[in-house]
């Protein structure tokens, strides 16, 4: 005998169908969610980040640019979206020196991407914070934050702090004691030894102007020296002054001070007052 297609369900079992459907639907969604999370976590394994060698460049306007290449190899199952990298440089007191960020909208899955993050440090603004950046090595505090939207569902952010060694371009700048020697009948040649070490990440090309003052504060002479000092190398040289030959001037020049003016393209600074005698 053929059963009718629509048989009235017993009252007790009528609720079983929606309950069962609810159970099936919930289970399907759970399986999808767990599979997604498992695949996303598994994809992290196939994701690699690597930093390249940083490059430094000096712009004519006195800005020092640090280019940091970042290699992202996304071999995972999902694209990385809204990748952003930001760096904040600050001094020991926490005052902000520079803030830069890089944004990449999409890093597709299965692709390798090279991102160049540029950090600009203005020498002028650095010197506004103090002359120690010109003459003393320092540690700058760097705060790095990188974030991305993983698998379009999981925004993640990683942050770290470290110190960046700042090498002073005129580290240990010293002017020695003047040495007197007769130049001609009217003037005396004064040789002053000058030395410093360029600890900076850039070459120094510019000139240093030095004024020689006697104990009374009168300008006796001035001299200008063109210097070219490659990065991480020392400079040793003599600066020559020509002082008019007179008993009074020679006596007054036994002690006094130098006013030193630096012009290295990136920055102009001065006077730096150094006593002698």
């Amino acid at each position, binding site marked *: 005998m053929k059963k009718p297609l629509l048989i009235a369900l017993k009252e*007790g079992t009528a609720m079983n169908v929606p309950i069962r459907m609810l159970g099936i639907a919930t289970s399907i969604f*759970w399986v999808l*969610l767990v599979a997604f999370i498992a695949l996303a*976590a*598994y994809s992290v394994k196939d994701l690699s980040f690597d930093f390249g060698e940083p490059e430094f460049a000096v712009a004519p306007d006195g800005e020092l640019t640090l280019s940091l290449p970042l290699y992202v190899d996304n071999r995972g199952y999902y694209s990385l979206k809204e990748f952003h990298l930001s760096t904040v440089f600050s001094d020991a007191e926490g005052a902000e020196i520079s803030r830069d960020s890089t944004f990449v909208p999409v890093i597709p899955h299965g692709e390798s991407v090279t991102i160049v993050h540029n950090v600009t440090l203005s020498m002028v603004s650095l010197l506004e914070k103090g002359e120690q950046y010109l003459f003393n090595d320092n540690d700058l505090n760097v705060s790095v934050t990188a974030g991305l939207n993983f698998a379009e*569902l999981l925004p*993640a*952010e990683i942050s*770290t702090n470290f110190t960046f060694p700042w090498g002073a371009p005129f580290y240990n700048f010293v002017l020695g004691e003047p040495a007197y020697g007769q130049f001609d009948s009217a003037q005396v040649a004064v040789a002053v030894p000058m030395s410093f070490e360029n600890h900076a990440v850039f070459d120094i090309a510019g000139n240093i102007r030095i004024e020689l003052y006697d104990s009374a504060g009168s300008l006796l002479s001035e001299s200008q020296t063109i210097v070219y000092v490659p990065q991480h190398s020392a400079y040793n040289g003599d600066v020559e002054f020509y002082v008019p030959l007179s008993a009074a001037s020679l006596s007054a020049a036994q002690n006094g001070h130098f006013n030193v003016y630096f012009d290295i393209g990136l920055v102009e600074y001065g006077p730096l007052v150094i006593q002698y005698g």
Partner: protein
Amino acid sequence: MAEQQKKSKNLVKDVSFRVVKATVKAILVYLLYFLVAPMLAPLFSLVPGFMESIEAFIAVYIVLMILSDITAKTVFQYFFSTARALFFMGYLLLSMGDGMFSTSYENFSLTVNLTLFYTIAVTLSLLGFARTILQAINFMHEKAEANSNLQP
């Protein structure tokens, strides 16, 4: 006498079936965990204590599932199912808090915004909880109906 023997034989058969079913389900759940755990290993390594926490969760979940299966066809099945759904929600709420997952390693700190995943998981577990409540209501309804049918 023969009918009583048949009844007790059926009871033994029924209990044995429930135990086997509970064991198979527990093995399947553990197998799923066993297969998924290596995939989540990169995540586990980032968070200290996460592996232990997951293991404890799986253990309690499996125990409640076994109890629920063994007590099938009784109201206790729904007690244990509800307890399991509540335990799941409680674990989610306690372990994930506001949905922001943060961890630190040396001087690196990682923050993952799991709010969306958390919302989906809580919604699904709420659906599971609602299902067990509906099942309990349905069971009591069926039982009451059966009793009323027996009465003259």
